[in-house]
């Protein structure tokens, strides 16, 4: 598809077929780890929505699907670390197996905060699954249990991930042109 907004892209980092291949592997791994269990997959809005929908259908288990919406304060390329929960889980997770599905872990602050928040509700188990890991930006010690791709410290958008609410609908993961976010 010939995206007009594709003009803002420096390069395609991970194309749609490569995403699909990796998600199938992740789906298999998660299905093997949770066989016989009723997994509750919690998608973190808005960034993880596309990843979440694609991953869920590759896990051949009776999944429970639910969502939380969180946002770092401030907009743009630097996340401050403080997280606000706009929409909390509307069900009890006590005694359940929970998997948090997030788009990207950079500083680690958001996922650490979410993990601690949900752990306090006493689930049977709590793991995290991240499409992208950007270890170069880590500020706190945090390693997701499942990682799609480890990426360099570049300005990444697409496949659910935005810059100023744009580019989420790109079907691939790309790097944004510097001129777009520095103007």
């Amino acid at each position: 598809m010939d995206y007009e907004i594709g003009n803002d892209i420096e390069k395609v980092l991970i194309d749609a077929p490569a995403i699909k291949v990796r998600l199938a592997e992740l789906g298999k791994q998660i299905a093997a780890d949770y066989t016989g269990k009723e997994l509750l997959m919690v998608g973190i809005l808005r960034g993880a929505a596309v990843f979440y929908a694609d991953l869920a259908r590759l896990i051949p288990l009776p999944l429970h699907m639910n969502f939380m919406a969180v946002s770092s304060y401030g907009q743009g390329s630097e996340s401050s670390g403080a997280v606000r929960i706009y929409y909390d889980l509307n069900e009890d997770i006590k005694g359940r197996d929970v998997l948090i599905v997030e788009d990207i872990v950079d500083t680690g602050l958001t996922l650490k905060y979410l993990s601690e928040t949900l752990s306090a509700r006493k689930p049977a188990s709590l793991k995290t699954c991240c499409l992208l890991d950007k270890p170069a930006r880590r500020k706190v010690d945090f390693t997701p249990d499942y990682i799609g791709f480890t990426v360099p410290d570049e300005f990444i958008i697409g496949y659910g991930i935005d810059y100023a609410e744009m580019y989420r609908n790109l079907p691939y993961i790309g790097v944004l042109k510097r001129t777009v976010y520095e103007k």
Partner: protein
Amino acid sequence: MLSDLAKIFITEEALQKRIKELAGQINRDYKGGELVMICVLRGAIMFYADLLRNIDMKVVTAYIAVSSYAGTESSGAIRLQYDLDEDIRGKDVLIVEDIIDSGGTIKYLLNSLMLRKPNSVKTCCLLDKPARRKTDYTPDYTGFVIEDEFVVGYGLDYNEKYRNLNVVGVLKKEIYA
């Protein structure tokens, strides 16, 4: 999970083909514009993700969660669990829903969003079950018009199961009867 289905109603290929057609229509209708696409949680998530990646314009994604009050299925009373994070005043808005049966939820949402004075609001629905309609309503974009059967999969659940199936299927009677 597939073994709980009496039959596959809409295959993965048919779903994806139809979604591409819908996206093409939406791309033409809003050409050059900017669209706020609202996903109605949780049922529409699969449809929404697949539709979104085929939309070729500036899109702001947004989510809304609704639920019917327990035991009042037919009364049409809807509770907004999670409201939009942003102002839609002056914007072109597209509500993306999984299924329209009685029409109560979509009509409620439409009325509620219209009060916020958007430039336009349209609705896009994967499945339309007109046999169940209790109020006069036709979505602007419809994926498939279906008979009054118990459908699950591709976001639609029965007791919170089957949402992650990549097809729309009809559930076996012994599962829910």
